[in-house]
């Protein structure tokens, strides 16, 4: 057990800090759920890629560093410490990218990865369907083979980034006789293809956060399939798994929020202390954010030593989503009657964050599903 960063790690941190300091946008970007903001964020991520910071765990030739997860944690710390913009290209970097690297053909990699890394292509995800939310294996959208093409019909929903992105990846039922997770294929679909209709879904916060995507005889080449036909579920799951759950929310993000919360509390301590649950909440926020950080370093350390991360990663999802809610609720309580004022500069970010935190226990596998997974796969309790 050794908490000293190596000289290389220290150098990397210094370099990242300096680069971010020199390059982060001087004015806050608009929300990426607007066209203008989306383009601003895309430009920022392209700049990150130029600097080699798009994803530090990616190979160098794709705008990464070929670095390990400790470097990823370090970079995230610097990124959040300086309040750099939210990331818009996570679908590509976290979800599709690793899948392509593992299952893509040489041609597919050459065709898609560099453009993804440079943000030339922006990717939307197409997992959920109206009747396949938590129950992902219930996917019904069809991809019927017709020679060298698939003809896609159906509907995806809750497709993040689909309002402004130009490509979508997702699972489609290529074997019409199949049920559950059999007979699905993993396809890449250009969103400007004929037969595609995109209907933005407006979120709680009034922004176009995701979309429904309708497919009406949409044709894509079989060259756009990753992995074998009918093996889509396995392809998706192989990298959908546990390590990705680790990367989805870095601890630095929550530590930064906990820091802002402590600062907010200090500014308003006299009024905050009228409600004893606030001080309790501030202490808890700090503790849980630090615990999440320590648990991340602990997990990463074991992974680097060849360990594996299993179903216990579901605890991660539960922990950060409840932490995020708890921190924002505490901030809302501190702000008291001002908390509703959307244009108040001290309020605005907390209010946005509070709304976003409501989604935490729901998306990326609802917390109910995560608790089932822990009970069944970690504790070995019988299925219901």
């Amino acid at each position, binding site marked *: 057990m050794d908490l000293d960063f190596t000289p290389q790690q220290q150098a990397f941190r210094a370099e990242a800090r300096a680069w971010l300091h020199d390059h982060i946008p001087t004015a806050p970007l608009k929300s990426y759920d607007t066209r203008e903001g989306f383009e601003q964020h895309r430009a920022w991520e392209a700049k990150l890629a130029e600097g080699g910071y798009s994803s530090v765990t990616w190979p160098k030739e794709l705008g990464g560093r070929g670095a390990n997860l400790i470097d990823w944690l370090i970079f995230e710390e610097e990124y959040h410490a300086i309040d750099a913009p939210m990331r818009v290209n996570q679908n590509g970097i976290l979800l599709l990218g690793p899948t392509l690297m593992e299952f893509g053909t040489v041609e597919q990699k050459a065709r898609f990865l560099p453009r993804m890394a440079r943000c030339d292509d922006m990717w939307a995800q197409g997992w959920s369907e109206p*009747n396949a939310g*938590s129950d992902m294996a219930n996917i019904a959208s069809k991809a019927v083979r017709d020679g060298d093409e698939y003809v896609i019909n159906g509907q995806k*929903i809750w497709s993040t980034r689909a309002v402004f992105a130009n490509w979508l990846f997702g699972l489609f039922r290529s074997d019409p006789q199949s049920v559950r997770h059999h007979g699905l294929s993993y396809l890449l679909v250009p969103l400007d293809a004929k037969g595609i209709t995109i209907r933005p879904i407006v979120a*709680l916060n009034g922004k176009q956060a995701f979309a429904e995507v309708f497919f009406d005889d949409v044709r894509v080449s079989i060259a756009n399939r990753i992995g074998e036909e009918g093996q889509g579920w396995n392809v998706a799951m192989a990298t959908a798994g546990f390590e990705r759950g680790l990367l989805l929310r870095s601890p630095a993000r929550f530590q930064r929020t906990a820091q802002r919360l402590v600062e907010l509390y200090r500014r308003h301590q006299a009024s905050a202390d*009228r409600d004893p649950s*606030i001080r309790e909440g501030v202490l808890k926020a700090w503790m849980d954010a630090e615990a999440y950080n320590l648990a991340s370093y602990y997990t990463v350390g074991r992974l680097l030593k060849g360990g594996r991360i299993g179903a216990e990663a579901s605890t991660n999802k539960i922990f950060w989503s409840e932490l995020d809610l708890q921190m924002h609720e505490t901030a809302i309580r501190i702000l008291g009657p001002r908390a509703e004022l959307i244009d108040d500069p001290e309020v605005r970010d907390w209010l946005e964050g509070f709304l976003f935190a409501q989604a935490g226990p729901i998306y990326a596998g609802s*917390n*109910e599903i995560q608790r089932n997974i822990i009970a069944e796969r970690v504790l070995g309790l019988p299925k219901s």
Partner: protein
Amino acid sequence: MDFTFNEEQLALRDSVSRFLMNEAAPELLREIWETGGGRAPELRAKFAQQGVTALSVPEAYGGLGLADVDWALITEELGYYAIPDSLADTVYVATGLLCAVPEAESLRAQWLPGIAAGTARVSIEHPVNPWVADAHLADLVLAFRTEADGILELHALAGAGLARSAIGSIDGSRRLSVLAQQPLDASTRLLRGEAARTIAEATLDRATVAVAGQLVGLAQRMLDLSVDYAAQRKQFGRPIGSFQAVKHHLADVVTRIEFARPVLYRAALALQRNERDRAALVSHAKLACAEAAWTAARKGIQVHGASGYTWEVDLQMFMKRAWVLDAAWGDRGFHKARLGEALLRDDAPLGPAATLY
């Protein structure tokens, strides 16, 4: 001893409820959210037609002269249908204020008939709130102000022409302003000092009970929306409402609501009888109803899943109103501090039956 409502009170509640079910559907609420400055004058006219605007107005001024306990049930309905602030503020809180101030005789004559008829709107400025609701349409603003000398005063200001700046709220049905704090002259002054303070406290308590009632009504609405969703929405081949986790989320909401309502009713009675422990009972009602609504929002969106996170599913309007009213007319810190003071006093309302005396 009879801690229940009588037939007339329940019948009135039912008739207001039926009226709102027909006239205040979520579609209307969406319209209100989306129209910039306005309110729905047709709706106000219908309220007047139903007699809702006249409920608190004394009979001498053309009203029904109902008291706080009667109102408790009505405020739940206003919450259930998420009726914007102006109605309760005008026809319950401000009307009560006007009736409580002996010096306001001429104001009563001037305004109460219009309130009863649904043609007058009154807003209230109070130090506990950093905003004034619906001041832009107010004919009259009753303003509690701490003057330069540190003394509290109550002024009656003509609404037209008041300098104000609009401030946006996450609740799209809110129309909030901050009024310019220029010095007020004695001509608009109703009360000053201790008398103003007493009325300010009574007004705060009345408004707090109104908000608490709306919160428990909102909780019930969010529960009902969530039950409907859980009964219809299927995952893994069965309605999600058949999963124990979903059941238990919603059972928790039922429990919170069941044990918030009687507290609300007790607080309304304390208001009506101007009891010694009024402050503690009112703060308790606010905290209990706020907790019920907060729980209903959190469990409601969890049960709704991604749908609950959208603009187009109605839940969001009720959640936002619940979040906003949670801190209106005294945030949790304000009410916990009042309650804590009451419990640490030597004559604190402690022990069996304490709050029933």
